[in-house]
């Protein structure tokens, strides 16, 4: 199959597809059930929120722990700064997401479906709310809408559960993971909106969609969201966005928890969640950021590290203090020039921070930094002082 799948039909910029049009175009959604889990395992669908967890395995775990009281959380927090694809999907194909959500609810025998939507995403919120109103009484009764604070960690699966339960979108201690013990203590399936939209199509056709939504950002002529076939070379995806607007230095693949790749190596990489993982890369949340050659990578990395440090929920000491120390050291190098002591400290502190938070926020930030220091090793080693950070 070939793109577009999720975005087939009317132009996404025309706003939400109404329920009648949705059913006319795709037909009614089939029934969920154990067979769907097998289908999801067979089609190797992976989560599109960032972690890329195999969807079929997660559904099987939740169904096994459900006892008819599971909860499905539809994660549309989209707290990743450059990502736009979840919002585009919510504002254009709300019923595809809802189909996926109700299929999940039927399959894991859930008593509730929570739509967890970033509170700043007004159009998405309106679109999803209106879409729910078009559904059957039974489905409407199942749904509850919760809004997520616009913070990076608010999209963490345990933070979604904590918000629904206690009204506070901070991550909680894991284990137990939400799929075992989530909302109200019940097994909880937290699934990204794009993932559920794929499920809605897979359940209808019995085959993998073979596509993925990406957000191309940075130094490209027309940044935006695109649906590409799995396996599309990264360079082709960037061409969909009009190509680089100026000579590119590197690509950040997978958002702020992603990896830096020199542009020369980047263009040929296949956009394929599973293949990338085998190369210890990750598509993450599907953000492809292009860094122009004129911009200083060290300054860019320092800025992102400061952002990630400020987004620590300050619950775990190593994350809060560690990320701040790392961001400060990066900023010192960016502003005052390379100091071998700072480089050593970056190495040591990275080691001390990794794996020592309740959620994966510190790990994501440290992996991002690690990849930056590998890709931009020379820049970090010979950074001049007083280079102004370009905005």
């Amino acid at each position: 199959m070939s793109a577009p799948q999720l975005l087939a039909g009317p132009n996404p910029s025309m706003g939400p597809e109404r329920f009648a049009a949705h059913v006319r175009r795709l037909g009614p959604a089939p029934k969920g059930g154990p067979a769907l889990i097998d289908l999801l395992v067979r089609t190797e669908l992976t989560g599109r929120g960032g972690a890329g967890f195999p969807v079929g395995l997660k559904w099987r775990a939740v169904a096994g722990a459900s006892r008819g009281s599971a909860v499905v959380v539809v994660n549309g927090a989209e707290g990743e700064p450059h990502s736009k694809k979840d919002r585009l999907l919510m504002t254009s194909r709300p019923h595809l997401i809802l189909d996926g959500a109700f299929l999940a609810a039927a399959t894991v025998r859930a008593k509730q479906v929570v739509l967890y939507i970033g509170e700043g995403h007004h159009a998405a919120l309106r679109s999803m709310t209106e879409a729910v109103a078009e559904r059957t009484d039974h489905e409407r009764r199942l749904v509850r809408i919760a809004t997520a604070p616009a913070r990076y960690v608010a999209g963490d699966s345990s933070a979604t559960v904590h918000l629904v339960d206690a009204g506070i979108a901070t991550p909680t201690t894991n284990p137990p993971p939400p799929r075992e013990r989530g909302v109200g203590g019940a097994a909880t399936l937290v699934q990204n909106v794009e993932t559920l939209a794929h499920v809605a199509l897979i359940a209808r056709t019995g085959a993998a969609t073979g596509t993925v939504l990406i957000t191309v950002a940075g130094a490209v002529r027309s940044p935006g969201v695109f649906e590409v076939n799995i396996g599309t070379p990264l360079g082709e995806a960037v061409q969909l966005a009009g190509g680089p607007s100026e000579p590119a230095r590197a690509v950040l693949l997978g958002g702020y928890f992603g990896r830096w790749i020199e542009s020369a190596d980047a263009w040929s990489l296949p956009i394929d969640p599973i293949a990338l993982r085998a190369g210890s890369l990750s598509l993450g949340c599907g953000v492809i950021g292009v860094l122009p050659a004129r911009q200083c990578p060290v300054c860019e990395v320092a800025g992102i590290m400061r952002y990630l440090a400020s987004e620590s929920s300050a619950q775990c000491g190593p994350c809060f203090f560690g990320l701040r120390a790392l961001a400060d050291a990066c900023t010192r190098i960016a502003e005052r020039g390379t100091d071998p002591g700072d480089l050593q400290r970056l190495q040591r502190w990275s080691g001390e921070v990794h794996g020592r938070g309740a959620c994966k926020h510190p790990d994501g930030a440290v992996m991002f930094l690690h990849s930056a220091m590998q890709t931009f090793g020379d820049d970090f080693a010979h950074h001049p002082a007083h280079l102004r950070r370009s905005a």
Partner: protein
Amino acid sequence: MSNTLLWYTTRGAGAVSLVLLSAVVVLGILSVLRVQSTSWPRFLTAGLHRNLALMTLVFLALHIITAVVDPFTHLGWLTAVVPFSSYYRTFWLGLGTIAFELLLAIVLTSLVRGFVGQFAWRLVHWLAYASWPIAVVHGAGTGTDAWSAWLFTLQAICVVAVLAAIGYRFIAGNRDPLATARSSFQAAVDRREPK
């Protein structure tokens, strides 16, 4: 003769219990304040706090048992359990019973902290700030010789030590280095419905 011995033991054990209890309170506060040095690790404060707390219970038991079995006062075992049930110095003895029961609750919840949970344990532990002053007042009001110089001096030392520790804690504030950042982040992501 043995009755006299009981009477003096009651008073001696009572005075010792007060000193121990005050030391326990001070150590507890020092523990919260994370006081340490190279030769005085933090677990030493905590360990001493716990050991002396258990020791306090032993001497309180001695204090109470010798008081109850003393035939002169005819206190009876009920007095040790039910506050203000004694005909003899009803009010002052009642305070002692209350202070003892609060302390018992604090120690017992500490011994099974894993079961009661950190939050409940902390709540109960705050009762120390009730138990200790009640015990001091009990001591001042009950001792026949409450205002004799030696007991007064002892009590004054205990009160000054504990008040100094409390003052230190008040000034030092929260020693959790994450406290401020954590609460401000939580406030930013708190979406509880106003009730």
